[in-house]
């Protein structure tokens, strides 16, 4: 059963992804994302009644590391890509709304 992707769906996804789309872009993405979903939906034609759900593409499990401290980055390196920093902190535009 094909689901029709609407403009409103794309608008919502853009909002959640903090993307600002123009009207033309919104139109284009509704079209192209709709095509992708339609393409993937062909998988629904396969009968999966006896197939275990897969959660990972790699057939590996239980990969652990020991609880050992390793050296961290020097602070200057950690902050190197920050647009703004001060006294060892990353600086971001003031957060008004506490979670």
């Amino acid at each position, binding site marked *: 059963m094909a689901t029709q992707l609407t403009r409103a769906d794309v608008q919502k996804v853009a909002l*959640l992804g*903090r993307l600002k789309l123009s009207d033309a872009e919104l139109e284009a993405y509704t079209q192209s994302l709709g095509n992708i979903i339609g393409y993937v939906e062909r998988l629904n034609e396969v009968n999966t009644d006896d197939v275990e759900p897969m*959660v*990972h*593409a*790699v057939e*590996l*499990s*239980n*990969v*652990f*590391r*020991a*609880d*050992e*401290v*390793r*050296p*961290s*980055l020097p*602070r200057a390196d*950690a*902050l190197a*890509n920050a647009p*703004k920093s*001060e*006294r*060892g*902190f*990353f*600086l*971001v*535009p*003031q*957060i008004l*709304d*506490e*979670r």
Partner: protein
Amino acid sequence: MSYTVIVGLEVHVQLLTKSKIFCGCSTEFNPDHPNVQTCPVCLGLPGSLPVMNRRAFELSLKTAMSLNCQIAPFTKWDRKQYYYPDLPKGYQISQYDLPFSLDGFLEVEVDPTEGTTRRVGIIRAHLEEDAGKNLHDETGHGTDSQVDLNRAGTPLLEIVSQPDLRSAAECKRYLEELRLLLTYLGVSDCNMAEGSLRCDANVNLHVHQPDGQDIPTPIVEIKNLNSFRNVELSLEYEIKRQFEEWQKTGKRLGEVSKETRGWDAARGATFAQRGKEEASDYRYFPDPDLVPVTVTEEELDRIRESLGEFPADRRKRFKEGYLLSNYDAAVIVDQGAELASYYEEVALGCGDAKQAANWVTQDILREMKERNLTIGQFPIRQPVLIALLGKINTKAITIKSAREIFVDLLTEGLEGKPIEPSRIDELVASKGLALVFDVVELDAVIAKIVDKNPKAVADFKSGKQAAVGALIGQVMKEVKGADPQRVRQMLVEKLSQ
């Protein structure tokens, strides 16, 4: 009109690992040196790959098993997407539909004096990563906010209770019991001042109607409660507020969306925050960078064996084995495993469990509190207290003398002097506190005092029983450490001749 309070708690607890959950950065609490415990993994730099910390997973299993949870044979991690400056990747690695544990419970003693318990259901416990810390400009001049990512990636266990709690006080008791269990297990230090244990509360009311129906009010989530006191106060406030709101608007569950509120401790009030994104808005999907984990029965058995004794079992054992009251057992066990073990060693060593309980719950706890000491720092160690209580039991000294010696030992110990059991004998001798059993000596002193006090003797003989008190005092002055009961008895005998 009456109502029932319905509360479920989400507790976030930092696990006691040395390194972070997905990288080797230290988890040390280090607020004075921001951003010195970061690496490409916990900074979320492109191309970095997380690898699960084995100890974090084992501590999680240990906790969930202690909470009587079912352990999933297969578990995986998911990405929870949202934007916030303390979350550098733009998603938190958490667990969505296949958490490692489900469906447990915690027995909570809601009334320690009575020993009445309530079973609080645990919906799930899952393992995730902590975010960093934002520091806001308190002046409000529109400057930037600061972000410290030292904490980002610290292993965090989220424990979600059923909405089984019925009052603010019960919530506090649940949290106290949970904290005690976690510290007994050694899975977390639960240091709230350092943010090791944080809590969100979901609360609403079931308002009872005259026709017997219950109307549920809209659910409110109070976020980021960082002390047990604040949990209790915010719930008390919120319960009242919701009832007033219901009386005003009559809005019931489902008619308005779930509200998120914060707690302003200074004002003593909750306040509305922005609406919470719906779960679907987090766009959870399996993290392709992490592989699933399967757990075998053998591994579970191995962990089960390492669990040790739970606080609730220990309380029960103290009550049954040492005949302690509910209250004493709770006071001792609730102070933590170290104090409970101290008590137990003294109880077994001196052979008088009740006497040991009195000393631990009264003298020792009082001094610990006044002097701000932990039991580990307390200078009178078990062998010394055993020896001291032994002296009472064999009637070598009185309880009053023992208290005096206890204070002397404590003072000397805090001055840094080593305190050995032999020091008790020295103090007993130098202070003349040994109970005198020498009847001949006591007899001589009594005869002398009786001779010196003809008036008191006459008073006694004319029926004034109280006159004997003054004589006892004088005898005790001469023979320090005499047993006052014994002195009274001998005096009365002498005067009745």
